[in-house]
């Protein structure tokens, strides 16, 4: 692999994103708008808004990156550009890292904008550092990217790819304890949630926004990092130079 090809890919992906103004607007507007909606809905339950709103700031990038990556990779596959790239002297890792770098930039910006609106305008209380939440948002975005990359291999159309979001991510977000804490779920569901990566991403977010960084926080991060690495490896394995 070469830094040159990785960087060229990052620049290319960012250039494509820049052309797509509407997508960019959606990326930066939807998350803060949803957060504002949450605030309005929980107007007379400020504690609930705090409990749900804080981690939401870090969860949006996960969901967005999952969707954007799966569609972007699907496009590369269906337009023939992926086949062309793989017939060139380009390492698969160059392509994956190029994408990861470009989307990290996007996730950092989204996390910063959502964080600024959430903590600044909407009065979300975070005892932990707001900057740490943005950093965690980036980690979560990478998890979304890795999962989206892997799952895009199983979609043959955009219609299928977008449905992996409710099919794969929604259950994970619900089981992670967003609305009902895991401890109050039926035991079987709690056990299931132990095996899902988003559980750990969510846990880390909850801990950092509550300023309760303990040993388990670092374990959460470790599990998320491991999940990213595993999903990226599985995703790389789906990029085949030879196909049927």
């Amino acid at each position, binding site marked *: 692999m070469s830094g040159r090809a990785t960087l*060229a890919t990052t620049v290319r992906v960012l250039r494509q994103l820049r052309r797509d103004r509407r997508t960019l607007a959606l990326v930066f507007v939807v998350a803060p708008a949803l957060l504002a909606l949450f605030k309005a809905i929980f107007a007379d339950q400020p504690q609930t808004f705090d409990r749900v709103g804080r981690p939401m700031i870090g969860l949006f990038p996960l969901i967005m990156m999952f969707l954007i990556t799966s569609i972007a990779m699907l496009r590369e596959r269906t337009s023939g550009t992926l086949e062309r790239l793989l017939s060139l002297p380009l390492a698969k890792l160059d392509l994956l890292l190029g994408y990861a770098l470009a989307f990290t930039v996007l996730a950092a910006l989204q996390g910063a904008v959502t964080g600024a609106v959430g903590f600044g305008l909407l009065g979300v209380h975070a005892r932990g550092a707001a900057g740490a939440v943005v950093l965690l948002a980036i980690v979560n975005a990478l998890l979304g990217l890795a999962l989206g990359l892997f799952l895009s291999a199983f979609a043959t159309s955009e219609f299928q790819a977008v449905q992996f979001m409710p099919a794969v991510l929604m259950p994970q977000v619900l089981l992670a304890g967003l609305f009902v804490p895991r401890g109050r779920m039926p035991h079987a569901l709690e056990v299931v949630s132990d095996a899902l990566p988003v559980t750990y991403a969510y846990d880390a977010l909850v801990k950092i926004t509550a300023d309760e960084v303990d040993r388990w926080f670092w374990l959460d991060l470790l599990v998320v990092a491991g999940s990213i690495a595993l999903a990226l490896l599985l995703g790389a394995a789906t990029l085949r130079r030879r196909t*049927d």
Partner: protein
Amino acid sequence: MRPDDPEPARARGAAAVEIRALRVRRGGKLILPGISLQVRPKAVTGLLGPSGSGKTTLMRSIVGVQIIESGAIVVLGEQAGTPSLRRRVAYMTQSPSVYADLTVGENLRYFAQILGLPRSRIDEAAEAVGLGPQREQLVRTLSGGERARASLAVALLGEPELLVLDEPTVDVDPILRRQLWQTFYSLADAGATVLISSHVMDEAARCHELVLVRAGRIVATGRPVELLARTGTDDLEDAFIALAQSR
């Protein structure tokens, strides 16, 4: 149509591509039941046959992106699909594989960076396909023929030793088509091997060598004049029909 012979002197060297008993199945369907073929180096070889005859599958196999069932393919002295060939072989797919949301120039720049080429190659490749004036135009807004040429320009970038071009002149206007053929001839003159597929028989006369395929089998190979002489026809389409029926 009176085909003239673009290259009467026939240089016989080691084949640029040598295929033995190639058998390929795609999606469970047997596309190539076992073909053998040699592609002459430093010449323009036309792979001609109706659509669905296995031309694309054969090209994909040569480029090394096709899973094959059995057989041997040696490309420029190495087994097809060997990593070192990725610099020496360029492939243009039938549907233009360029980014629609980038300009022609941005597409070329990206692929040139992957290949580690100087910027001058970008201009040369754009000029070679007649897209110099459209460099700043988004690929999405190009016509079908222009998109195909943008994709062709990417294939020309790295000055490859073997060019595998799947229907590069489809939807191209006659004047430009002649210009593209001049480009192919000069590439061959400069030492490159050019393999071009087409389902249009009037392209056949322009090739140095022909490979006629039908239903995954090779009907005939040879220079256009040879095929006409062999069949006693004066039209390559008639020759194709005569050769296909005599099998």
